[in-house]
């Protein structure tokens, strides 16, 4: 981050309403109003599997390395660009400019966030949106080479930068409760 600014004036988008999970009553599923919050568990045995929204919540608030905005605000990530399978997740992200030198860093921050917050059973693939970056393949290849990711995470300077981006990652989740 040697002072070079790749996109001094990015487009900022309004935050989407966060994954609005409705209570059983609001959806009409239950007859009676439950006074509890929207997330209260009515049925303990019910399994709520990890879905698009949940993963989006994990990464939406990661800070852009270049601006005081979240990846969501810059539309770098969006729920639609997340694909969740049984044990497999594919995240697509969109750099704000095709020559963005931060793309690898952004991708890495997403990977680390998921590394820390998703069950190990999930295999994660991270790609830039096709056609959104001039060196798309290079970035993708690097982001999905576990050996290089591992090495990167042993580089203190880089990790420091990553932690800065990740500081904000938890925030929205906290606003939640």
């Amino acid at each position, binding site marked *: 981050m040697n002072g070079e600014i790749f996109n001094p004036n990015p487009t900022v988008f309004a935050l989407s309403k966060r994954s609005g999970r409705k209570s059983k009553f609001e959806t009409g599923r239950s007859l009676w109003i439950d006074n509890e919050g929207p997330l209260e568990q009515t049925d303990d045995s019910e399994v709520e599997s990890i879905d698009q929204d949940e993963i989006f919540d994990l990464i939406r608030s990661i800070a852009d390395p270049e601006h005081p905005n979240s990846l969501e605000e810059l539309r770098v990530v969006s729920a639609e660009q997340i694909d969740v399978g049984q*044990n497999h997740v594919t995240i697509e992200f969109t750099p704000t400019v095709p020559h963005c030198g931060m793309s690898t860093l952004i991708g890495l921050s997403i990977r680390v966030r998921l590394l820390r917050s998703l*069950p*190990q*059973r999930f*295999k994660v693939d991270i790609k830039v949106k096709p056609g959104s970056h001039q060196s798309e393949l290079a970035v993708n*290849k690097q982001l999905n*080479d*576990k*050996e*290089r990711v*591992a*090495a990167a995470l*042993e580089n203190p300077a880089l990790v420091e930068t990553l932690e800065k981006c990740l500081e904000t990652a938890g925030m929205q989740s906290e606003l939640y409760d």
Partner: protein
Amino acid sequence: MDVDLPYELQLVTDLRGHEERAWQIAWNPVEPLLASCSADKSVRLYNYQPSNESLKFSHIHSIPTGHTKTVRSLAWSPSGKTLATGSFDSNVGIWEREGGHDGDEEAADWECMTLLEGHETECKSVAYSSSGTLLASCSRDKTVWVWEVHPDSDFECMGVLMEHTQDVKCVAWHPSEEILASASYDDTIKLYIDDPSEDWFCFSTLTGHKSTVWALAWSPKGSYLASSSDDLTIKIWKRVAEHKWECALELKGHERSIYSISWGKGKTGEESLGWLASTGGDGKINVWDIREPPESSTGRVLSHKLIATLSSAHDVSDVNSISWCPREGFEDLLATAGDDGSVRVWKVVPSH
């Protein structure tokens, strides 16, 4: 999923102890020793002894190594006396046993004889030549280094090969000749020999893989070279002339990057080229029996048969390394290392 294959993989032991991802295992070619290395910067040594029809593995020693970053790679010298470690801290460590001889391992202590510095970035793989006189290492700095091994662990750099345009992932020596192969992030494989007059040089580049080539394995007799890649294929290259290699076969059977392959003698007799084992990000182990086509048949293609397979070999984790035991009588013994930090040993047994 087990479609009835002739063999199956039987778990001999599950060796836990690494605090982080285990990257590679290496069987000592001479003694009953298995070594593993890990992101926790340590090397663990296990000894194994027959105990009623099975084998008993016991952890006998841990080397803290002192590498400042992940220990990525391991290699035993043919003599089995020396162990080389390649680390993300860009150095190669040379280890030998001090005191406590073959008899009592526990007494043994492993000391760093020398530290080979030269690579600019992470060292990703190390390998000893069949004669044990040469050591090769490779790194993200795109270079392959060839070292000559002198007495009293003195090493001399014979050449720095800057052929690859990217990160070099793996180096492997021919089982008998002094031919070195390297595989890279640039999707190619390169073959090198020592020109007596000149220096080490690349005499051939094998292209065809569509993504990073992760691993290499020579056939036991050396007439074939197998390579595994992020493109989810394994290619087998046939030596068609002294210095000419051609792709003779492509194997598919993994859903994610194939991080490691190993080619052992196997136990299916002389007419077989041996058993090729592969594993990777899908956590699956495949074992193929590879055979030359009968002279009669017109097809020059190698015949191959998947003889055993196992999914989730390390539960949900990636498997990073697979290796056949090179010792006489243990041809059916296979070891793997996984992201779960565990090392597992498998026996290939006829299925019933």
